[in-house]
């Protein structure tokens, strides 16, 4: 725990200072935080031994809620848009969760994928409502009632997101230590024994699922604000797979892991755009294999030097 705090504090300090030194990095770092939040949701599910290839659904749903509300000039305000969109994602996760928590492992992962693809297809096909594959523009909303210039807005959003990410990470760390979080690990190790203790594994997983939907939704809401544009691609299953990649790359041992993974992911994306623009998914694939076979605890595991415990072994 102490090490986790040190790594987390170091990362936080670096993130606070970096945008002040190089303003161009603000948006990239915000995107990394958003994807880190979604990957944090994946981490919660991975603790239960489950993987979702469909959390792009909550990411995209929340982003579209922001886009629709902003376009309708209804609550055209960051402090309203983000909580409402996040809550909407949580509600959707509760609805879908009722169905998917009945399944484990392969079915859990692939049903999430299928449901997110339903949403993706709807976004693409219902052109008159969603703007089809071109997506929707998100006009820049006010922040606490003040209209800001682009650079200022981006900087503020970054620090707000950073604050929210810290809160989310601390909250998830607390949750993982709580009885609910411990029961989550028991789903992975032996679900039947958990049920014999009188704990409903479905209820435990349902709670984790809604939490993961909220985290992905929070990330999606902020992405819509900083990119100013939403497309169905946010819901595509390969995109959901990237969240899983980030979670595994960062490591599931601690809540700092997904954010380390997300920063690394942005670095890889940056380099790949220059050196391997056509084959950057292949680069991700190779890295994923290397991590799974040689460093199953991810970057976080490498930094804390712990023996593999989270995945595989």
């Amino acid at each position, binding site marked *: 725990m102490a090490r986790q705090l040190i790594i987390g504090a170091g990362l936080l300090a670096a993130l606070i200072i970096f945008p002040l030194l190089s303003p161009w990095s603000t948006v990239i770092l915000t995107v990394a935080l958003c994807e880190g939040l979604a990957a944090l949701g994946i981490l919660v599910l991975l603790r239960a031994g489950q993987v979702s290839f469909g959390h792009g659904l909550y990411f995209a749903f929340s982003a579209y809620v922001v886009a629709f509300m902003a376009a309708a000039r209804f609550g055209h305000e960051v402090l309203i848009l983000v909580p409402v969109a996040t809550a909407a994602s949580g509600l959707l996760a509760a609805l879908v969760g009722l169905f998917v928590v009945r399944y484990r492992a392969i079915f859990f992962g692939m049903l999430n*994928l*299928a449901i997110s693809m339903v949403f993706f297809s709807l976004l693409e096909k219902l052109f008159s409502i969603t703007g089809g594959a071109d997506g929707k523009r998100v006009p820049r909303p006010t922040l606490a009632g003040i209209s800001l210039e682009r650079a200022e807005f981006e900087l503020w959003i970054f620090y707000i997101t950073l604050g929210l990410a810290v809160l989310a990470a601390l909250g998830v760390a607390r949750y993982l230590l709580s009885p609910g979080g411990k029961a989550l690990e028991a789903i992975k190790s032996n679900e039947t024994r958990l049920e014999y203790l009188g704990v409903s594994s479905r209820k435990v997983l349902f709670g984790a699922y809604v939490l993961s939907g909220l985290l992905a939704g929070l990330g999606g809401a902020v992405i819509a604000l900083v990119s100013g544009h939403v497309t169905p691609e946010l819901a595509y299953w390969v995109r959901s797979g990237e969240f899983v990649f980030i979670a595994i790359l960062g490591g599931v041992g601690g809540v700092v892991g997904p954010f380390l993974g997300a920063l690394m992911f942005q670095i890889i994306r940056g380099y790949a755009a220059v050196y391997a623009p056509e084959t950057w998914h292949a680069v991700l694939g190779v890295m994923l294999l290397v991590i799974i076979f040689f460093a199953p605890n991810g970057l976080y595991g490498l930094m804390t030097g712990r023996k593999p415990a989270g995945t595989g072994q």
Partner: protein
Amino acid sequence: MPPEMLLLAALDGLAYGSLIFLVAVGLSLIFGVLGVLNVAHGSFYAIGAYVAAAGVLALTGMGLPPWLAFPFFIVAAVLVGVIVGGLVETLLLRRIYGKEEVLQLLVTFAVFMILEDAQKVVFGVQPYFANAPMNWLGTIEVFGIFYTQYQLILIPTVALLVLVGLRLFLRRTAFGRAIVAVTQDRDAATAMGIDATRVYLITFIIGASLAALGGALSSATTSLTPGIGSGMIVLSFAVAATAGLGRIEGAAVAALLIGLGRSVAVYFAPEFDVLIPYLIMVAVLLIKPEGLFTTVQTRKV
């Protein structure tokens, strides 16, 4: 609604369902025997399609008769299955049998990402269109509408042959029975002298070849663009899950169901055609969580 329309939709659905059956049955077979859900299965379909299209374009370019495409389809499917499928199984999957299912999903997901980009590098991003085999077979008239014999007769026939052939292979041949034995109890089968490692490899190659065959057959009917594989994996999983993973005859029924459902939707509610497979799957799973044709298994403590 005129009855001919329903018939036409049914004929469309038959061709479409046959095609997804070929892919889904490979996915289901691999899962049934190896216990691994192969996320890269859609890539085998796409690679099969690209190899077939490139081959047909080369054949017609050299002025050779278009019927040569049909034997070439089979050669292409087997080649893709043996080379790509064989490499994936021996190099990667072999290391992760018996590990968590989630880990297996992740490994095949990584393979998927690598194969998707490999296709772009090898075949480029330009659309491929090689419909010479379809034109060569000509058309047939049903209720005043011309259908290609390729889609109405050839594809369903191949699907039927694969279904019957697989069933006979698994029930009647020595190697097929070895596959069934390994599926039921790997340890006991190994103790009886069955080489389980070889059974896994060959099963994976058969499954991958079937996906590639589906791709090869589809190459004559549509133009190929990057991304066809990532759509197909979702669709074939929907079919396999509706039937119950590992069910071969069930996959045929589910593929037909989903194929018919989709083509009826194409006629009556075109904007929702892509949703139909998922809606059918979710509806079936809500009522029968293990799929249509699976019996409930007891839990191990």
